[in-house]
């Protein structure tokens, strides 16, 4: 069974409203209303294995700031974002924190590390 869904392309400002046809094994078979080929590539990725970068904060004890901002070292599967964010909420790191220090490796087995995006000195 083939189904279709509308996906708005985010690759460029044109914002094509694409009609994306998907087969019963969740594969994109056809894309309509895309102005260029990038739309099809985006739609395929978005349907078959959507990924997102995760940015959040982690609590710091003994630091000049109570939080350090963090990100994933690479995008992770979209359906793991909420769980990963919940995991980061429970994490505490001791100051000092270095810029790009790895705070958690291989979060949820995704292969991505959680790294600090700023430095936090000791209080």
């Amino acid at each position, binding site marked *: 069974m083939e189904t279709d869904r509308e996906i*708005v*392309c*985010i690759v460029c*400002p*044109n*914002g094509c409203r694409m009609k994306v046809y998907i087969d019963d094994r969740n594969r994109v078979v056809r894309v309509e209303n895309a*102005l260029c080929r990038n739309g099809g590539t985006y739609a395929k990725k978005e349907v078959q294995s959507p990924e*997102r*970068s995760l*940015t*959040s*904060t982690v*609590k710091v004890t003994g630091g000049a*700031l*109570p*939080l350090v*901002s*963090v*990100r994933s070292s690479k995008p992770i599967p*979209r359906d793991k*974002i*909420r769980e990963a*964010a*919940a995991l980061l*909420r429970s994490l505490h790191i001791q100051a000092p924190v270095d*810029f790009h220090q790895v705070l958690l490796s291989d979060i949820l087995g995704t292969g991505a590390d959680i790294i600090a*995006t*700023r430095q936090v000195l000791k209080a």
Partner: protein
Amino acid sequence: MLINKDLIIIGAGPAGLAAAIEAVKRGIRDVLVLEREPVAGGILNQCIHDGFGLIRFDEALTGPEYAKRFTDEAAEMGIEIITDVMVQEISRDKEVTAISPGGITIYRAKAVILAMGCRERTRGAIGIPGTRPAGVFTAGVAQNLVNIRNVMIGRNIVILGSGDIGLIMARRLTLEGANVLAVIEKLPYSSGLQRNITQCLEDYGIPLLLSHTVTRVEGRERVTAVTVSKVDEKGNTLRGTSEKYKCDTLILSVGLIPENEIALNSGMDMDNTTGGARVDEKLETSIPGVFACGNVLQVHDLADHVSSEGELAAVSAADYIKNYCHKAGESSDTGENCLCSGNDRKIPVTAGSGIRYVLPQAIRPGQAITFSMRVTVPGREKSVLFKSGEKVIKKRKYTALNPAEMLRIELSSKELENISGLEVCIDGN
């Protein structure tokens, strides 16, 4: 005490830092940056999401990482940045009065660059009826509390305004465990980027209610509910469409305004649409030797454009300082490179139909000039026209136009030859 400086830059965000670095590269040694916050970097420090620097660095940096590129470079160059200091006033002869915990200091600069950024419109600016309980925040304040200060602002949250900050806070608060009930937008379209609608709302199943607004706030000590109603094309509330949302927090993402009190008080010419100073192609204001860049000049959507505008202001300020006449305390009007002799005629640039504003507001042709502008409403298959009188001197076609995205179009010196005026407008393809 009067301290003399070649160049004073007000604000150490992306505009001010980029300007300082560029000025030093252009040979200006005596540069001072004044910053109100305790650290340099500006609003980027609290913008922990990624997507910054795609044009300049060809990678998606987070706000703090983007800021660090500039603070590191400024530190390597030994640029003097004073933090915890607030500029109260600049005068026409470029005296800068600054107040800090140590007292009041007065500087005299050969040139000044304004890079103070912008601030948010508040509940008062849009006049939402109802009680005045705790729990109403602007999006940027909420972002500061949640991302920097470790203060969670609420559990059940309604967001009014679908600009990028509102969308980004919807995701951020969801990831911190809050329940974002809806994002409400008065216009029939979102004023945010599609990327953010997809990744901040759709990913989390947060509804976006277009053509709706918040018509009442309830609660005595803390917000207990807000009423949301449909609006017509003119923005008038439609009777019988209201729905109550039980919530403890209302976040407002309802627009940004250049933070321009010191420019206003200095008496320089302002643009009522942008809320910033009127500038020429050098980003020079109506006060010779005072330049403006970044969000204090016009509210941007990309930090990359803020940085490059800072650099342009610095190039102009460096030229101005090099031609500075010491005995008069003003730029020389005898040198051949004189920049402000007053008799170099500027051509006015005006926003025509479909264009909300265009910058710079006046130009001296004779070089390539990049114009920034925003359209008034979304459109498809339209062109931006540059006209001198009835003659079209440039036409750029667009598949899609969106007020959320600033357009930047460069015209060559050849295209600008022999023009008598310049009007920018929208036309069908």
